[in-house]
């Protein structure tokens, strides 16, 4: 606040005598900002760092109450080796990958086609449908999992990853369509007119113009679909009870916690490995990730 106030005053001669105090005020504001950010960073990064720390300790050291839990004496990768050597855990990973890849592909096809139609073709009910898409986005999965449990059960898809592939699009399609409508609507009409004059059909227009021009939007939507299906928890918890077909989230939470003595090191190693793919995507594509996050409200 005071930092922005200081800028114009330097340009105004009449306010010159206030500059000294403003500069002090500005420095003070900067110090407050950094202190707040450091505290926030400790709070935000503390838990994942502690998970990492635990995953690198031996079981004996974890159980040793006489030493600080925040220190580490012998770094070991044995927890990671143990968890990666567990065929059940590799099975979870494999299930997560299949489900996520399929869901992302289905989602992108459905939402790009629908968004293109909704953004460019005016047809009966298109406005209602656009509103409907947004409303469905607001329906939480916890409201639907019981009827879906019945429906998926009726189809005989309980305990099968195909059941998950069927229901995950409810989590991803509405938001992806919504942000793609925003991106497509921002493409100037002159571009499609030019294409029409050159004799392009709707399909060519979509593949030759809309998809390339709105590529940042498509990347953002893909990242969103990927993160959501990787992290989905309610549906797999409800529909899957056999370890064979569990994806990572529920697998780590339900299967790695057994008995009274928890293998904390392995549990944390498993959780971190499971969280790795979204974190990697985020690390490399942060700007797209954030664009997708904010697009829902600012583009629209």
């Amino acid at each position: 606040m005071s930092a922005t106030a200081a800028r114009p005053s330097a340009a105004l001669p009449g306010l010159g005598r206030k500059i000294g105090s403003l500069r002090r005020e500005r420095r003070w504001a900067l110090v407050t900002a950094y202190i707040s950010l450091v505290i926030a960073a400790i709070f935000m990064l503390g838990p994942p760092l502690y998970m990492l720390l635990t995953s690198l300790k031996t079981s004996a050291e974890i159980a040793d109450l006489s030493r600080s839990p925040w220190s580490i004496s012998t770094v070991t990768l044995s927890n990671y080796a143990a968890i990666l050597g567990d065929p059940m855990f590799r099975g979870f990973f494999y299930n997560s990958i299949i489900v996520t890849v399929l869901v992302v592909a289905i989602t992108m096809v459905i939402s790009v086609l629908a968004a293109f139609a909704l953004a460019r073709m005016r047809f009966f009910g298109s406005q209602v449908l656009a509103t409907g898409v947004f409303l469905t986005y607001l329906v939480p999965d916890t409201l639907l999992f019981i009827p879906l449990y019945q429906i998926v059960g009726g189809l005989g898809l309980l305990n099968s990853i195909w059941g998950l592939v069927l229901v995950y699009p409810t989590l991803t399609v509405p938001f992806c369509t919504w942000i793609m409508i925003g991106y497509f609507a921002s493409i100037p009409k002159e571009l499609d007119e030019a294409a029409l004059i050159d004799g392009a059909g709707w399909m060519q227009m979509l593949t030759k113009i809309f998809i390339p021009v709105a590529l940042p939007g498509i990347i953002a939507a893909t990242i969103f679909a990927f993160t959501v299906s990787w992290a989905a928890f309610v549906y797999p918890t409800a529909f899957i009870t056999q370890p064979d077909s569990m994806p990572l989230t529920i697998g780590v939470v339900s299967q790695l916690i057994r008995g009274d003595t928890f293998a904390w090191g392995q549990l944390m190693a498993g959780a971190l490995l499971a969280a790795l793919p979204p974190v990697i995507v985020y690390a490399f594509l942060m700007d797209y990730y954030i664009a997708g996050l904010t697009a829902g409200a600012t583009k629209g």
Partner: protein
Amino acid sequence: MTLPLIAVIAGLVAWPASYAIYLATLNRRMTAFIGLDNFDILLDNETFRMVIWQSCFFAVTAVLLKALIGFWLAHMLHHIPTKGQRKWRGMLLVPWVIPPALSTLGWWWMFEPSYSSINWLLNAVGGPSIPWLGEPWWARISVVIVNVWYGAPFFMIMYLAALKSVPDQLYEAAAIDGATGWQGLIHVTLPMMRNIISITVLFSLIVTFANYDIVRVLTNGGPRDLTHVFASYAFQVGVLSGNIPRGAAVSLFMFPLLAVVAFFVLRGVNRRQREMA
């Protein structure tokens, strides 16, 4: 081209939603129609009344804290030199990126009674050990803490994007008129961001109110069923105890509040669309 979309909305959202209403009017074995008895029984049940109360308490406290912390952090980020902003933003968004079910495992381990690393830190500065997940009130607070940890970065990102869209000239004009920083915040920043703030808060209210992951992993409803929210209770009644109609009734209790909130979100988004146009 919209047919697949319509199929998803109709088949996997609209149809299950109406099916839920039908399910909720059946008896336990799903053989007879019993009208609103399920809702009646639930409202007479003390545990369920506690669930209503706990869901509201959880959603309101968590969303308020997330909004305040998010707003504060967005403001602080906005004020440091642009060069460093990316780095800080990247670090502070990490909780939002990790699947919540997995990061909650980490919190659970940090709250673990005998090995709690948080209690170790508290003891180190002379504080008492806290029974994080053992006492009802502490368990409720723990759930709120984890939810705030997970959700505050989202608010921060949304508010930061909104702050960036406030034109500098407005602040300059305010400064020339002699406004202090505080007045600038109240009379320039807040009115310009009002819409985004309300959309984000309402949206988060829906998501928090319907939250399942954190309660399931952290407390699983305990101690003594005192930290259940609608979603986890519906799961326990409907899927684990096998009373599907009653479980459907529990989750349908979320519907009125969600409908009201959704109405306001939609109004906010439409208004914003008109402003941007």
